[in-house]
């Protein structure tokens, strides 16, 4: 009974933590949405129980670029009881996605739209270049 109550409380905290980029929960949510994994299947992917997943989500996210990344992942994995390799994979993948996202300066769902805009810009500039060249050609020689 007490365990059930704790799970409900931790679930609420996990949900809130997922809205704050400081916590692993935000990365878990992002990873799930990137890979189309339902939230409830995240625990089986990370080889842990639901409570362990909540505890993991409430940990501070380690920076994959930091030299202490591996040791921090190990510490989190051993505290929360999740698979360390899978956790490192999740954090690296979400970090890459966030970096691409920042460079693209577009919301995640619109990443492809960002690429399309870039392609269109490129096309436009080459079009402009072509038309400039064409207009140069068309100029009557005096």
């Amino acid at each position, binding site marked *: 009974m*007490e365990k059930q*109550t*704790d799970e*409900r*409380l*931790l679930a*609420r*905290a996990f949900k*809130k*933590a997922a809205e*704050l980029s*400081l*916590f692993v929960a935000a990365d878990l949510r992002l990873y799930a949405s990137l890979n189309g994994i339902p939230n409830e299947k995240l625990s089986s992917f990370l080889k842990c129980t639901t409570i362990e997943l909540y*505890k*993991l*989500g*409430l*940990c*501070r*996210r*380690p920076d994959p670029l930091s030299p202490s990344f591996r040791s*921090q992942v190990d*510490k*989190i994995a051993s*505290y*929360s009881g999740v698979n360390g390799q899978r956790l490192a994979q999740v954090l690296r993948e979400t970090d890459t996605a966030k970096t691409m996202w920042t460079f693209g300066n577009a919301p995640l769902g619109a990443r492809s739209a960002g690429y399309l805009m870039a392609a269109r810009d490129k096309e436009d500039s080459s079009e402009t270049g072509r038309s400039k060249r064409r207009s140069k050609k068309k100029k009557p020689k005096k």
Partner: protein
Amino acid sequence: MTTRDQFELSIHGRLLAGADPTASAELFEHYQSRLVSVLRASFWQRDDSLIIDAATDALFNYILNPASYDPQKSPLFNYLVLAAKGDLINAVNKKVSRLKTEINISAVENEEFGGNKVTEAVDTEAADETRRLRIIYGRELATKLLREISDPTDRAILSLMIDNVRETTEYASVLGITKLPQSEQRKRVKMHKDRIGKQLERFGKRQSGKAN
């Protein structure tokens, strides 16, 4: 120094340093459930989600700004309880004013479009209920109030009023009059709610008289 003191000092130091990845989760594991229990015991608040949110928010606020806590002034748990109580009172006040606004809007709508008398009467009562909510969420007052309203049926009706239940059927089932025609049910429910409302008003006046 007790184990609890040691945990408090250690977790505070780890959060202040900002480099320990598991400190925030350990804080939740250690305090969240205790915090919720203390809030449940101190407040007569039926909406449990408000209590859980207040406890959770207090912990997040501390994690995000650990320097706001001064270990010289009080134990960490007392600090968290105080913060959570403040959050809870704010949340209850917000909920009450939101209910009031909703009720005001529906009252205006009824006036404009000529809503029937029964709906208007229910809305007026609901406005009173939200005012009463303000008066009675303190535990001490709640105990006094329960002494005042001793009849189990009246208490059940009061609970529904505090929870802002509007459906006549809910009250009718408490009163055991579900087999009566709906108009008669409405009439009897209104009569009971009016009576309890007057009792509450008298109680509220007595309490504010004592406070003055």
